[in-house]
Structure formats: structure tokens, C-alpha cells
């Protein structure tokens, strides 16, 4: 496992080197708050944050994208992305979410070329968490503050430096490319890192999810859903900000025989999600929609992909306008 130490101030050098071949995305605090943005060597990379609002899925699965245009009989696919990108500062929970999205978009039978080209062309450098939030529960769903899954490189803050640790072949190759930038870490650095990691892990609140999938298999018609969903506004913020939610709709915008096809994020919390062409809607109530969201993440994905599609990032909790807390919902189901 390749390790390398880089002074925080030397990140600029790394950004400058990466920029020769591609784009470097990192976090900056701008007028619109904290967001993942394209960085230049003169930008101040922020390391001081818990997590950022819009999950990294947006890099690969944008809110909306034109996928093809057509005129008369001919159709043209939009060109695939060739941008080489390094994405720095993703939290370990969010890095794991990308592996789940891969299961959806890079399937043996059906591969989404747009998603795939962006994924293939990027390198993920996660940044280990030191200060888990009140809403974090990653360790209960297979992620952790220093989890490596989904990362090519995992970085740790160690005093005035960052300790990079390669987690994939791609990550190793990347680090080998810049021998002048990375120094060999000392024993004290590794020790400091280990202490930070175990302290952070201990601070994450846990929930007991044992048997959740089996429980959900038995409670489709439970009155629980009505009870739980009463205060839900059906706004969909929980799904739009969830790193693993991946539903989309396709829309044609055309004038006579000329037009374009657009893919736009959709959400099962919207009534229009299940509206059929006939005008019939098989899922008419909030309670059915809430049931779908929970069932999909904690039961259907387990049945289909053997994974719970939740990484415990807590965005659905912190962003919900009426404080629906998925941890409480799951506890109700298990009860």
C-alpha cells in the first residue's frame, strides 16, 4: 500500500501538476456556500468542513443532461465526456455511494455510457472524517470515517500535512506519477493518523439495523407507513440530496420532427413519478411513496444487488424541512 505525505500548502503544486492533464475538483467556500468546484492552483482548497450539500453523484449523473438530438429520421448521440478529472475531498461515505451507483449504471447487460465515461475518467481522493456530525451513521451501514471503499486514494489530515494512501491500482499509479510531491511518512505521522481515525469512529452514532430487510419483507401493508409519513411534505429533498438515489426521467423536447432527449433526475417522493400515460396513478399517497423510498434502499436493493443503498451520510436527515429522520423510521420498522 503506497503512502505519501504532502504539506497542505503543497496541494497547490499537486493541483498545478494535475491541471496539465485534466481537471482538479475540490471544495471551496464561495458565495454559494461550500461546493465541489473546478480548482486552479491559486484557489484556496477547503479542508475544514463536515460534508458538502450536493453529493458527488452530480459529477457523474448530473441533474439534467441532453443525451441525444434528432431531426427527421436521423438521431445523434451526444459525445461522451473525455475530461480527465481528479475529485478531491469526497467523504468516505460518499465514495462508497459511487460503488452502488456503479451497480445501477454499469451493469453487465445495460451500461450507461454517459455515466461510465465520466466514472472511467475520474480518480477519487477521499478525505477521512475527523468530526462526524449529529446526523452521521455511516458505521451502521458499511461505511466508516476512514473507509476505503470507492476511493482510489484516501487522504488523512495529519497536523499541517495530508497523508495519502493508495486504495486502488489507479490510485497507486497516480501517486507514482508525482514522486517529487509526496514524501515518505514517518512513524509518528502514521500513529497520529491511527489515533484520529479511531477517535472519529467512536464518535459516530450507531443504529441497530439487524434484520431490517426481513422486517421490511413482512410489513408492506403495515399501518406504520401512514403513521410515519404523516408529516412528510413530499418535497423530494431527501432523494435529490441522497448520494445513492439514481432515479431519472426521460423527456423529449421537440418541434415537429426536430428535437432532443433529456435525462433529468426524478424522485419516488413525487406523485408524477408513477403517473401513467393513461392518467392513472398507482401510487397516490404519501404513505406509499415513503414506503417505496425505505423499501428500495433497505430491501429491494438488498434483494437485487446484495447491498443496502444507504451510506449513512445523513443528508436526508439534515435537509428534510420537517425533520424526518431515517434512523427513527428504521427503528420503527424494526420494533
Amino acid at each position: 500500500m503506497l503512502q505519501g505525505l504532502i504539506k497542505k500548502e503543497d496541494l497547490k503544486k499537486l493541483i498545478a501538476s494535475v491541471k496539465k492533464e485534466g481537471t482538479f475538483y475540490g471544495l471551496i467556500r464561495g458565495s454559494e456556500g461550500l461546493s465541489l468546484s473546478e480548482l486552479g492552483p491559486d484557489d484556496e482548497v477547503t479542508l475544514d468542513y463536515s460534508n458538502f450539500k450536493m453529493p458527488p453523484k452530480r459529477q457523474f449523473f448530473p441533474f439534467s443532461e441532453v443525451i441525444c438530438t434528432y431531426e427527421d429520421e436521423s438521431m445523434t448521440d451526444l459525445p461522451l465526456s473525455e475530461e480527465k478529472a481528479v475529485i478531491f475531498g469526497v467523504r468516505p461515505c460518499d465514495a462508497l455511494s459511487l460503488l452502488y451507483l456503479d451497480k445501477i449504471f454499469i451493469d453487465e447487460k445495460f451500461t450507461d455510457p454517459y455515466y461510465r465515461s465520466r466514472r472511467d475518467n475520474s480518480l477519487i481522493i477521499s478525505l477521512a472524517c475527523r468530526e462526524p456530525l449529529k446526523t452521521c451513521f455511516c458505521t451502521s451501514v458499511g461505511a466508516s470515517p476512514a473507509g476505503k471503499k470507492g476511493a482510489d486514494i484516501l487522504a488523512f489530515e495529519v497536523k499541517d500535512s495530508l497523508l495519502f494512501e493508495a486504495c486502488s491500482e489507479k490510485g497507486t499509479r497516480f501517486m507514482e506519477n508525482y514522486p517529487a510531491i509526496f514524501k515518505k511518512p514517518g512513524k509518528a505521522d502514521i500513529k497520529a493518523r491511527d489515533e484520529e481515525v479511531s477517535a472519529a469512529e467512536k464518535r459516530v452514532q450507531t443504529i441497530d439495523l439487524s434484520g431490517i430487510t426481513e422486517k421490511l419483507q413482512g410489513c408492506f401493508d403495515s399501518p406504520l407507513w401512514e403513521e410515519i409519513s404523516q408529516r412528510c411534505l413530499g418535497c423530494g429533498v431527501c432523494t435529490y440530496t441522497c448520494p445513492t438515489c439514481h432515479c431519472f426521467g426521460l423527456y423529449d423536447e421537440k418541434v415537429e420532427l426536430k428535437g432532443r432527449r433529456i435525462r433529468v433526475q426524478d424522485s419516488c417522493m413525487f406523485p408524477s413519478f408513477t403517473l401513467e400515460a393513461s392518467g392513472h396513478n398507482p401510487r397516490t399517497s404519501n404513505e406509499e411513496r415513503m414506503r417505496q423510498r425505505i423499501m428500495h434502499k433497505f430491501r429491494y436493493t438488498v434483494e437485487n444487488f446484495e447491498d443496502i443503498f444507504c451510506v449513512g451520510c445523513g443528508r436526508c436527515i439534515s435537509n428534510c424541512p420537517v425533520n424526518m429522520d431515517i434512523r427513527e423510521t428504521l427503528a420503527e420498522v424494526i420494533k
Partner: protein
Amino acid sequence: MNNIEIKLKDLVKDLFAGEKIDVLIGYENGSLPLRSRPCFVHSAGEVDRLVWNSYCTNNLAVYLPRIFQRQEHKKEETPPPRVGIIAKGCDARSVVGLLKENQVIKENIIVIGMPCSGMIDPAKVEAALDGAGPYSCQGEVDGSLEVTTSSGEKKRLKREEVTAEACLECSHPLAEGADLQIEGEPKEACDERYEKIREFEAKSTEERWQSFVKEISKCIRCYACRQACPNCYCKICFVDQTKPRWIGASDELSNVMIYHIGRIFHQAGRCVECDACVHACPMDIDLRLFTQKLVKDVKELFDYVPGLSVEELPPLWTFKQDDSQSFITEP
């Protein structure tokens, strides 16, 4: 438990005991520090869940049309419920609007007015803590909230610095037309408002347009602002209609703009400035600026303030020969 909370619980217990209501919409403790959240109480036995504190930010009137607009298959089984609702000044004004627009059954609701002293805005708290939510709150001392951040640091937040904008500028903190009133000291009404609006108005057309564009380009079109608003009860919002489709699906600015212009104008003479939309927006968009501008215009042009009287006809329902026409030609 504070005094007001005790009075409130006693009153609600009486309502259930006297079989006056089937359900009460109120607030309970949330799962996060500095958060209370809407809850539905169905019997006297559940009343102790209710809370009243500085974190009751949500506008509860949003649930009323939904309660009465129940699904068709359920309508026959049971008559519409009798609903009690806890109301701050703004919630009560929203109820007045809903009554005026025939969205709720007057005989079936009991509005319980609360003496509101202003609510804490979780987004302001987050901003004061550098973008992270508080890890815990130790309570309020000398007008300051004592909170601990996720890094374990203790901080004091001055109450007025984290009070919601809507509350700082609230003109009607007391639910005046409420059916029942919980006694207490509400905050003082604010009549020095619109400072930001005047600044906005002073800008050139181009600058105003640019600031509108800048704000709404953050929008992800989740429509949480619509869902949180008691006035947005349409069964199918214009943005969701497909025949015709009024608005394109992509996130191009022109689409986002159509939604916002539509939403803002549908609030003319109706918005009570509660900021339910602002608090719901995950992108921290300053929606207040635009709807408040309309509130000010409607007041100045038609001398009308929404949500104060069920009988008074709103300006968009009426046409008077001497109605102001200035806005028709002036940008």
C-alpha cells in the same frame, strides 16, 4: 416544561375529552438539536408529546388542505376530521387565507393561537457554526443559545442573531382571529420592514434582473418551496402539467425562471411572509426577497394585507375602477 406548554397541553386534553377534535396538528421534539417538528396527535393520551419552544419553525397550515383533500376511497368511510391546529401569528394568517380560498372546512377546524416570541432559524445556526449543524444544545442562558459543535467546541449564539428573518420582521406575532388563545407575552410587532426590498427597488432594472438570476440559478427544482407553502395546494401544479407542458424539464435557466416567476406571482396578495419556502429550500435561496417585494407592492397599490380577515376580498378577485395600473407599464 414552560408555562405555555402546560397551558397548551391542558387545553388540548380538554378538546379531546370534550370530543371537539379528532386530530391536533402541533409540534413535538425533533431528532436534532434546536429542532422541533410537526406532529399529529390523535388522542388525549398522546398529548404529552406536544412541545412549545423556540424551534417551532414550520408553518403547520400546510397540512390542512391535505387533511381535507383525502383520497377518494377514504372519503366514504369516514366524515372529514375535526382538526385542531396550533398557530403562531403566521400559521393563523395562512389558515385565514385557506378559509378565504375555500380549502378547509371552517366548522371542522379549531385554531389555537400561540403567543409567539420568534423562532430560531436552523440555517442561521448552521451558518454561525461554519456550515455544520450543532451537535448538542445546552439550553438558553441570558438570551444566548449554548451549543456544542461536532468538534466539541462550545459556542454561544445570540438569540437575535439566529432568529429567523421572518420572525425578526414579523408584523403579526399573535394569532388574532384564533378560536382559542393561549395567554402569554408575544414578541413585539415589527413595523420597520422592507429595508432589503427598498435596496432592491433602488437598483436598475438590469441589476435587479441579475440579482434574480444569480439567486435562482442555485435552484435544483426540487419544489420543496412549493410543498412547504400552505398556499400551494393545487392538485397539479402548473410545472407538473403535461397537456400542455408549460415548462421544460431540464435545469436550463429559462425553465427555472418560469417556475420561479410563476410561483412568485401566484403568491401576490396571498403570501403571509412566514418563510416556510425559505426554510424548506435545500439550496438556501433567498426566496423571501421576491415574495416580499410583492407583499409590499400589494400593500402599496391595493392597500391589502393578506391573512387578516376572512371576509375582505383579495385584490386579485376584485376589479375596481380606481385600481392602480402603474405596474402595467412600469417595469
